């Protein structure tokens, strides 16, 4: 329950935050835009009074109208968790700078967010899918994700050997591919 | 015809096997009897003329026939002993205390599909298990199991043994390379590196022993660890276990034991088949009887290395204490007609004698159960007495008993190590062999040689 943190952040990042820092239970929340990510997070990480050296989580959120990326940070200088919400990412082509220069461990978390939402992290050296197969064509955790369409578009549709055993002789056979990465 | 087809359908698998095998066996035995009757004397003459070859063939056959049972026993021991160390039960169902499980495993392995991977080199792939398995009986030819019970007794027996042991590397490399599988390749190369590196401390550590014994013949090395009379008629040895070379060459024994563990691909040096890293090493692509061959070869290798350690350092077939010479001559003929009474009455009386306590003091036992228990006990006691008589009268029985006891104690130690120790890494293994064992074995050799020279010089100086 650190009310002072919210005031400190309001003071330090005046003009950058999209509104006052909110505090509830044991979490303080600030909202910024995609362009300020590098400035704010580097300041939070490097400045000794703030000292948010631990990135606890990097999440993507699809609010239905826009995309957001949410960082949770922890610092030994305060008893609260800090939540940094980067809002305003468009749903068609969400782009945000990557934080892998600060925390190399964020690479896989950004990969997961890309895989699930389609948010492109600029500066991430390895932005490819992590859970879904590499040729998957949509982003599962988006609110406009509909499963049946994707299964039909999937390259695995109807090519299984077992299903072809009793098919008509003149049907075009599928080529049994070895699975890629 | 349908009656035969129906009979055939109604038979179980063992029944069908017997129905085919028994007539064939009968025919074969009739044929054999005829051949022997007609040409028996000629055959005997040829055999006597070529006695060494006959001896070799006979010994190799016996070794090959004995290899699977020994392997089965060691495999069962490994499963059961490690299970008991792990606080589990292990094999329990097949046979008394699960002892037939490894036999059943062997039969199962015969029934598995035997395939060759599509890109593997078929000739090399097929011959790799054969090479690995063949080295085992070849190296076991020189091991003396008991006084007089050995296949061959060269002057260079020990050297021959190490040469044959090195042949295993060829087989493992063949298996690893021909499998067309990176895991097998890594396993095969690791095993080649390991066996080749540990050959050197293995052989060097026994050179000190060879200096002391004066010969490389395994038979005479064993003899020198007991009471023996040398060429000049001088009696050496006290019959106690302190005669064994383990006490005269302690460092050599230690180095040999460690290098033997590495040679046999046993934990902690079992990274050739480290199944948590490279699946099954060189044997990854093998299945069925070929894998069975690799598997057998490993366990027979354990037995043979233990046998060699026993022969070299632990006294071979010598008893650890001087067994007093008892003479126990049983002459059944002297009883005359009494023999008939003995044979008729003793089993009956002994059965009743052993059954009586169970029937009289335990109310739950029914009389026929008590009689069965009595009969079994009588058999056990009779077998024990016959064994004791054989031990006293035949030196090869006594020798075999001690030899097998010591060898299986060492096998138990190998199994014990497997259950307890983790695995070393390949670079730690190689570093250990080249940086520690090799200088230690050289040190052992030099110290032994210096000691022999010094004792000799002192003796000549005193005389």
């Amino acid at each position, binding site marked *: 329950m650190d009310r002072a943190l919210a005031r400190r952040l309001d003071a330090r990042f005046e003009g950058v935050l999209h509104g006052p820092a909110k505090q*509830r*239970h*044991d*979490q303080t929340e600030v909202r910024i835009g995609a362009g300020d990510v590098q400035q704010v997070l580097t300041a939070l990480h490097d400045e000794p009074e703030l000292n948010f*050296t*631990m990135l*606890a*989580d990097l*999440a993507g959120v699809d609010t239905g109208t826009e995309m957001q990326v*949410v960082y*949770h940070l*922890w610092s030994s200088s305060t008893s609260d968790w800090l*939540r940094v919400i980067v809002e305003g990412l468009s749903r068609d082509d969400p782009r945000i700078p990557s934080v892998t220069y*600060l*925390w*190399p*461990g964020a690479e*896989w*978390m950004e990969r997961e967010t890309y895989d699930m939402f389609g948010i492109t992290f600029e500066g991430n*050296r*390895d932005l490819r*899918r992590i*859970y879904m*197969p590499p040729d998957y064509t949509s982003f*599962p*955790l988006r609110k406009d994700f509909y499963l049946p369409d994707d299964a039909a578009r999937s390259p695995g549709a109807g090519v299984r*050997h077992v299903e072809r*055993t009793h098919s008509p*002789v*003149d049907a075009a*056979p*599928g*080529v*049994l*591919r*070895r699975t890629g*990465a | 015809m349908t009656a035969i087809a129906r009979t055939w359908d109604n038979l179980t698998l063992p029944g069908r096997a017997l129905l085919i095998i028994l007539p064939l066996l009968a025919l074969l035995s009739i044929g054999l009897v005829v051949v022997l009757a007609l040409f028996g004397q000629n055959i005997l003459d040829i055999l006597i003329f070529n006695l060494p070859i006959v001896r070799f063939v006979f010994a190799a056959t016996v070794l090959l026939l004995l290899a699977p049972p020994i392997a089965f026993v060691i495999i069962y021991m490994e499963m059961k002993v*490690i299970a008991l160390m792990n*606080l589990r039960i292990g094999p329990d169902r097949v046979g008394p205390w699960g002892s037939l499980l490894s036999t059943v495993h062997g039969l199962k392995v015969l029934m598995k599909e035997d395939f060759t*991977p599509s*890109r593997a080199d078929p000739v090399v792939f097929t011959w790799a298990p054969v090479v690995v398995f063949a080295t085992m009986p070849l190296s076991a030819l020189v091991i003396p199991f008991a006084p007089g019970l050995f296949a061959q007794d060269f002057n260079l027996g020990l050297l021959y043994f190490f040469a044959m042991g090195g042949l295993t590397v060829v087989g493992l490399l063949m298996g690893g390379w021909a499998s067309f599988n*990176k*895991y097998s390749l*890594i396993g095969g190369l690791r095993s080649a590196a390991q066996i080749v590196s540990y050959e050197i401390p293995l052989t060097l550590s026994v050179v000190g022993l060879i200096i002391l014994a004066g010969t490389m013949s395994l038979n005479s090395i064993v003899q020198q660890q007991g009471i023996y009379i040398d060429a000049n008629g001088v009696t050496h040895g006290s019959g106690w276990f302190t005669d064994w070379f383990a006490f005269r060459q302690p460092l050599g024994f230690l180095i040999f034991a460690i290098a033997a563990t590495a040679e046999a691909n046993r*934990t902690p040096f079992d*990274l050739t088949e480290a199944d*948590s*890293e490279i*699946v099954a090493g060189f044997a990854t692509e093998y299945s069925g009887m070929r894998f069975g061959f690799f598997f057998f070869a490993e366990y027979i290798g354990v037995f043979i290395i233990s046998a060699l350690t026993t022969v070299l350092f632990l006294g071979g077939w010598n008893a650890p204490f001087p067994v007093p010479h008892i003479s126990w001559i049983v002459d059944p003929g002297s009883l005359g007609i009494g023999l008939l009474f003995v044979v008729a009455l003793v089993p009956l009386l002994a059965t009743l004698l052993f059954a009586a306590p169970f029937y009289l003091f335990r109310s739950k036992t029914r009389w026929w159960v008590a009689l069965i228990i009595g009969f079994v006990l009588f058999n056990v006691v009779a077998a024990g007495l016959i064994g004791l008589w054989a031990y006293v009268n035949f030196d090869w029985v006594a020798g075999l008993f001690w030899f097998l006891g010591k060898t299986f104690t060492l096998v138990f130690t190998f199994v014990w190590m*497997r*259950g*307890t*120790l*983790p*695995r*070393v*890494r*390949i*670079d*730690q293994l190689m570093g250990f062999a080249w940086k520690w064992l090799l200088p230690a074995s050289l040190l052992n050799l030099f110290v032994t040689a210096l000691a022999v020279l010094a004792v000799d010089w002192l003796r000549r100086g005193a005389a």
Partner: protein
Amino acid sequence: MATQTPPRPAKPAGAATPEGTHRSEDDPNVLLQDDYAFYEPIPPYPPRTEREAEFYTLGDGEMFLNMGPQHPSTHGVLRVVLKLDGERVVDIDPVLGYLHRGVEKLVENADYHQTISQVDPLEYISSLFCEWAPVTAYEKLLDVEVPRRAEYIRVLSGELNRIASHALFLGWFALDLGGLTPILWSFIERDEIVEMLAALTGQRMLFNYFRIGGVNGDLNHEFMSRLGDWMSRAVGQLEAGMGLLNENEIFVRRASGLGIVDSETALRFCMTGANLRATGVPFDVRRAHPYSIYPEIEFDIPTRTEGDSLARYLVRMEEVKQSLRIIDQCLEQMPDGPIMAKLPRLLRPRPGRAWAAVEGPRGMYGAYAISDGTDQPFRLKIHDPSFIHLQAVGALLPGNLLADTMAIMASLDPIMGGVDK
């Protein structure tokens, strides 16, 4: 006779096979590529990122080895493509997703209460912690106060689960290094604890025990008697296993100096839990950001500074002892009272966001819950420590030998259920 093989389908007449393929013998309708037996784990499409391009170009004398999803030693279904130079690992590329179940999406389509059973199989060895974080997040959204007795029961069962998880870690670590015995002894230990928890929760592994606002069942007689029995020989099997390993020269030489992480790198890689504490940073969520009733319980945070596999192993074993202390204190201080807060059946939290983190056996396990006022969660993001630690393997491994791959992965203790969500 007994079985008849089905007749083979007829070959299509006059059908020519395309270039580089041939027909399968078992089913002529299936075309196989000519080199189907020759498998290199190189993806069949051009590299999508610069890291992929860098990884999949072979240097001089290097080869790829695919430790596929089926392997005796990967901790679940994990595929690791190794770039080897002989036995030395040059680079690795872990491929995940074999166990991806879409838990976060499933949670969005179900009720708040159903989250608990969905989220159980994530880190299936330490299920209670997987339930604890989302439940705490939802309780923050609902502004609900959990009764003290329920909190104590949560801590008690959680610490038992932690001991069971560390027992599994001990066994698995030793097994990956070649020792067959400690895992079986650990499973004796684990079996007793898991039977205890089955008496309490009804299940041996995926407990489904915590509820939003409390727990699902009070301590019962069977649980208490089993617990009392077990406390008398508490971690005997674990100590036997440790006795077999801690002073074993082979084990120590294999594990020490292996996969060294320094504290700065560990923080940069977002590592938490025992892996972080073994590098010297005494960060434990139970003390750094206390939740539940941990402020009232006394325990230490074992920390080591070497940062190698042996340190990680020793830190976890020390934590077991601390867990025993916590269990003792819980049993002493257990208050009476209700075990569930009064909540409506259909939960409609206020629209808002909440984050909760607990200290699981593997690290900090976090849940970020967003509610939009309806009765279905809007978003639940699970932060899983195994996911992060598996990423660190890629940084720790190059330069080590193949045998160390398994040792380092085992010492970081990943569970693929959590990695793949």
